[in-house]
């Protein structure tokens, strides 16, 4: 029955340290967030894959709470062809740039369980 409980399958896989996503057997597109039908072609055969975790920051907003440190919220385009919301860790929030290359890891101690986070990965796109 796991095919019909994709969110559970996703969180189980995250728990093992993998960055899971689905691919469609029909149109070969990457599918994220997890679901039971391909949003591009309507096929119902979706296969689980593991992302290599490399991506590019598509956009960023730094949130400045009144009583806590600022933190970045980013949208990352993974190289496999899907986009996810995440955050960038290990560098100051204001240093995160659109176009920066980032690498995923699973933060097992996220506020609501395991979550994917990103760290800066070498040079930014467009820099030489």
């Amino acid at each position, binding site marked *: 029955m796991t095919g019909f409980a994709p*969110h559970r399958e996703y969180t189980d896989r995250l728990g093992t340290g993998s960055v899971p996503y689905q691919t469609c057997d029909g149109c070969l597109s990457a599918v*994220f*967030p997890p679901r039971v039908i391909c949003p591009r072609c309507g096929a119902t055969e979706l296969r689980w894959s593991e992302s290599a975790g490399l991506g590019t920051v*598509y*956009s*960023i*907003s*730094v*949130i*400045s709470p009144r009583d806590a440190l600022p*933190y970045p*919220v980013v*949208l990352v385009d993974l190289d496999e062809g899907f*986009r*996810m*919301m*995440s*955050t960038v860790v290990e560098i100051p929030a204001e240093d995160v740039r*659109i*176009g920066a290359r980032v690498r995923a890891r699973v933060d097992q101690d*996220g*506020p*609501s*369980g395991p*979550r994917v986070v990103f760290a800066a990965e070498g040079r930014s796109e467009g820099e030489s």
Partner: protein
Amino acid sequence: MSLPDLRGATAIVGVAESDLGEVGPDRYAIELAAQAAGAALAEAGLNTRDVDGLFCAIAGRGMAPLDVAEYLGVRPRYTDGTMVGGSSFISHLHHAALAITTGACDVALIVYGSTARSDSGRGRLPSGPPELPSYEAAYRPRMPITGYALAAARHMHQYGTTRTHLAEVAVAARRWAALNPKAFVRDPLTIDEVLASRIVSSPLSSLDCCLVTDGGGAVVVTSAERARDLPRPPVYLLGAGEAHWHRTISQMPDLTVTAATESSTRAYAMAGVGPRDVDGVQLYDAFTINTILFLEDLGFCAKGEGGDFVSGGRIAPGGALPVNTNGGGLSYCHPGMYGIFPLIEATRQIRGEAGERQQPGVSIALTHGNGGQLSSQVTAILGGQETL
């Protein structure tokens, strides 16, 4: 079977707001909705017994049409509770036109009420289990502002749009609000004040955000034929279009291009007009970036040029293109969902009833609703008798 020809087939015959701003702790959303409904029907020369089509959406209330019908004593034969966030009411106008034109109802009441401002701090905010697991919540975005901030950041990156451009939108809205006695905030506002205000979710500051107010609104729609016998000059629906491509911001394909490109194309095609024919524009300005994105996507300027377009007071009083002449969600009123108010203002501008902020010779007005996080987009084009 093809769709009926909607152009000019139906008309708005009554509009009203309820009390706006902060109405106090002892009042309820449905009371504001009903207050607006009574006033809009009275303006139309009708009453609740004439209403046979009911269109409403209230945030957090899944059966709003049932609540409102019982409260008003309406027994509709056609009901539409379409809930697409703040764009719902312009969507309702489109649906009402279809229902009236096909004979499903004769007098449509579109109605909304909210005590969003008075609710904060008295524990009356609706809550419940999420409909879907969230793939965003773990990153603590401040929704909805972060969704719009991500779009603004991307627009700035791609097109060189600046925070000063965003501030121009807030200042223009405030200048219009100064001309509207019903606007919640009317004090003068400068670009520098917007730039100096606290960044909440970069690049958006507190003054890039809409108000949170109480308020209700109502719009009465009937056939063009019946409208001619009613007291107020009919304001005809010339064209309408709807589109949505995503729900959560992480699934928006291109954060600089909204589905308003598609909704407006449909509305212009039905109306047989283009952006150059539009005399006044009422947009859903929940955040300053909205106005820039929508002016581009509705065809008033090219993609990426919205920042320059709004500069120098072009959309402010005295500018070449009047936008959000009531002061908008930024300075006039924003009770959770704003979409019924641009519809009310567009109607008043066409009727020439907008008081000190009235624009000369408004024949064709465009009104645009937005829902979710740049998600649902609905465009309507309204016109006076001379546009038929």
